[in-house]
């Protein structure tokens, strides 16, 4: 019976929509998201569809005209080939290191993912030193053969693909190794007891089961290659090999803003298409859900007579992809002049002294630290507000914010740079650190959302509810209960944004101007201008910082993040 004026009690406790500080926080986050993420990205789309203020597809027609079709085609084939190479190398290595009794497999696992931590354009610099015309690896071979000029050069499409494959194959390795480890061993044992030999088991059970992981890793490698700027810029431009990212860079130098936006949209379409493919592959994984059984460590596959040949092959591969490039950078940075004979008398520390005394480098270092820490702090702040509304308070509409914040994950960084240029250059931010910061926040927000929502979800609702029934308000509960519990996760998230931001090149190179250079830009420009040794010395310093930062992440997260 209902008495007039009496309101039925709600079935579930609802968040009051007015006056609740959590709602106010979410609304503020929504406004910021609209300004920082939605507005600039929308501008790219709008601008690409307009010519002289009128709607038109003319720019797209120009972007796919015979003159400009090359970069699109180059992007697609180079990224596809990269991804195929990455899938082959990554899968084989994952099998060897996870499932066999290969000697030294623990050490190799660390080495194999080292290229993942090194910025791709460092790899390009290092490989140019190894396989360039005077390269450490090439020169002895040429001397031995008595030829003066190598028939092949690293400054070529092949060189670009090779270095990209080295840099992006850890994506495949990590996904396949993870799948192999998670896979229930009894699935394979059941095949053995059904009468299948170990090779049959591998072909008919193991490989079909990890196939989605191989493909998903391959798509990640493809996306990385499509969006990469540093490698094709340093190794491809000399051979006049253009991909979309380097073409956009060139178009901005003209400047031809319209063409840059249309090419950006092509880049977005390829990248989003690939991401969609990956999601579709992973959706199929529901089929592969397996009831967890007893944890029995798989008997490693015995390589028998192949044990040492396989070890030599795998160890050699790890040396080549992980150790040699870093060694090349270190050696170059200590040589008196590039091409000096490799002996003790040729060593010097003067390049380091020179760098450390260089005003431009000190400014770039300061800029980089300011930008990366500001980006990390603001990303974590915004990310926490959104994730809290979404994952904890479950405020209606917050799922939308989470989706928008994750969107930039699919957007290549070149496009993000174009977007912030379109949005903020005309309000006087051109050439400031602020515009670079806005690009970083846009690019790294998905990273912070992932860590903040994962961390916040780990706290059981009841902990917060216990705070509330003890008499604390929502803000107080957040401060006294939630925040202390999530602190390690938040710190890890902060470092996860700081690290890539501190070595960023693709966006900074399009946004910097005099006095707002970052370390990445400085290294790139020095290498591009031919100051190989100074670039190498600076790269070595940055690598040391990266590896130290990684150790810190491992310490903070007890080994869950980092490598």
């Amino acid at each position: 019976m209902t008495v007039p004026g009496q309101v039925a009690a709600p079935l579930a406790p609802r968040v009051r929509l007015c006056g609740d500080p959590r709602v106010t926080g979410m609304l503020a986050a929504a406004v910021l998201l609209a300004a920082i993420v939605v507005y600039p990205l929308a501008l790219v789309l709008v601008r690409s569809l307009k010519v002289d203020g009128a709607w038109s597809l003319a720019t797209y027609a120009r972007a796919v005209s015979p003159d400009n079709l090359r970069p699109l085609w180059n992007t697609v084939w180079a990224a596809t080939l990269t991804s195929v190479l990455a899938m082959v190398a990554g899968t084989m290595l994952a099998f060897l290191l996870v499932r066999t009794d290969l000697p030294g497999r623990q050490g190799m696992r660390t080495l194999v993912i080292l290229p993942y931590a090194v910025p791709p354009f460092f790899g390009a610099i290092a490989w140019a030193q190894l396989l360039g015309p005077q390269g450490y690896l090439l020169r002895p071979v040429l001397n031995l053969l008595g030829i003066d000029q190598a028939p092949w050069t690293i400054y070529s499409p092949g060189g670009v693909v090779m270095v990209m494959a080295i840099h992006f194959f850890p994506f495949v390795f990590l996904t396949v190794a993870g799948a192999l480890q998670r896979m229930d061993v009894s699935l394979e044992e059941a095949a053995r007891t059904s009468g299948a030999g170990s090779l049959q088991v591998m072909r008919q059970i193991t490989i079909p089961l990890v196939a989605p992981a191989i493909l998903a890793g391959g798509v990640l490698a493809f996306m990385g290659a499509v969006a990469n700027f540093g490698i094709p810029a340093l190794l491809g431009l000399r051979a006049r090999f253009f991909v979309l990212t380097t073409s956009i860079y060139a178009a901005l130098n003209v400047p031809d803003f319209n063409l840059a936006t249309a090419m950006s949209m092509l880049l977005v379409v390829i990248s989003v298409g690939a991401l969609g493919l990956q999601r579709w592959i992973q959706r199929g994984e529901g089929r592969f859900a397996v009831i967890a059984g007893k944890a029995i460590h798989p008997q490693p596959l015995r390589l028998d007579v192949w044990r040492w040949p396989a070890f030599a092959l795998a160890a050699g591969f790890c040396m080549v992809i992980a150790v040699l490039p870093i060694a090349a950078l270190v050696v170059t940075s200590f040589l008196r002049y590039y091409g000096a004979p490799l002996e003790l008398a040729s060593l010097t520390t003067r390049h380091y002294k020179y760098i450390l005394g260089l005003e431009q480098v000190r400014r770039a270092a300061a800029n980089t630290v300011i930008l990366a820490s500001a980006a990390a702090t603001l990303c974590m702040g915004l990310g926490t507000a959104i994730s809290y509304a979404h994952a904890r308070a479950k405020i209606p509409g917050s799922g939308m914010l989470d989706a928008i914040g994750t969107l930039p994950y699919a957007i290549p960084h070149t496009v993000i740079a174009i977007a912030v240029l379109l949005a903020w250059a005309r309000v006087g931010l051109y050439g400031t650190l602020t515009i670079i910061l806005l690009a970083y926040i846009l690019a790294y927000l998905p990273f912070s959302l992932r860590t903040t929502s994962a961390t916040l979800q780990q706290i059981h609702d009841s902990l917060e509810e216990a705070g509330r029934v003890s008499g604390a308000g929502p803000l107080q509960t957040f401060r006294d209960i939630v925040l202390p519990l999530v602190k390690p996760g938040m710190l890890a998230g902060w470092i996860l944004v700081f690290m890539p931001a501190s070595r960023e090149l693709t966006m900074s190179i399009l946004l910097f101007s005099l006095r707002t250079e970052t370390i990445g830009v400085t290294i790139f420009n020095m290498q591009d201008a031919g100051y190989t040794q100074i670039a190498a010395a600076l790269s070595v310093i940055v690598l040391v910082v990266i590896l130290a930062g990684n150790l810190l992440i491992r310490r903070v997260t007890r080994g869950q993040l980092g490598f």
Partner: protein
Amino acid sequence: MDKITVQGLWKEFDGVTAVADVSFSVGEREFFTLLGPSGCGKTTTLRCIAGLEEPTRGEVRIGGRLVSAPASGIFSPPERRSVGMVFQNYAVWPHMTVFDNVAYPLRLQKLDRRTIEARVREVLEMVALRGLERRFPAQLSGGQQQRVALARALVRRPEVMLLDEPLSNLDAKLREQMRFELKELQRRMGVPILYVTHDQAEAMALSDRVAVMNAGRIVQVGPPLDIYSHPADPFVADFMGLMNFLPGRVLSRQGEQVLVEVLGQRIRVVDRSALVGPVMVAVRPEDLVMEREGDMAGTVEVRSFMGNFIDYKVRVADRTLRVQTSNAQVHAEGERVALRVKRALLFAAEGAA
């Protein structure tokens, strides 16, 4: 002829002994169970028989053929042994349909398509899965996946079936139903089954013989009823069903007729051992009779209604005893009662050799 013979089996992992000197054999149509708490080595023993682990020492024979003998360097890999195995988590391949899962062992034998289809159909009929051939495992319930695993193990008509806690992932109702079906299936197929479980009720219900394992060793082998009524030691007594352990002393002994004093009461016990003096008296909850008056007085502490019987905890002096009575005999919590021992077993007193 014995279908499985295990002789002096040892298995060590990095210096830790998982199985120590285990010997037993499984007869032609026998349902044989390895029973024990987790970590007792029962699964490792099973895996050694399947060929999924290589034993450190000892011999394993399947159908009279020597398949494992480290001393003479003999080891047949699992695919060369005629076994059908059902895993605890079923291990149904998620990328294959029900039909493909079950047909897989036959395809490996390179049988022709018609034979494969006929035999898969036959075995699916047996486990009541007809009509689900084209489903993927993710579209099946846990119980159905279980049947797929069973069918896959049966389809190649192995010499022996190895079942590793196959029912432990099912809910209670289904578990009970599958118990009957397993037993029925084995009778029809006549295939010997080696079964591993930690659930003593399951072991008693299913097995012709049970081997109770503890800390890597077999403690006792025999038909369930024998083990239940004549456990070899307190561990087995405790593990097979519930048991109250009370301190007592032997007052006099005439052959197997023994007079024992326990908790102030004198009882007559049939005992085959030669124990004298202080002993440990073991009494099953159903062997304690609750009466209004008697020598062994106590108080009902907790009463749990279990449906077909009532489970009491009764405090006598400074101990709590488990007593089970029919559901017709109801006592209130806090009520004063007296206990009478109907039947008891004697073990050496704790600390005594």
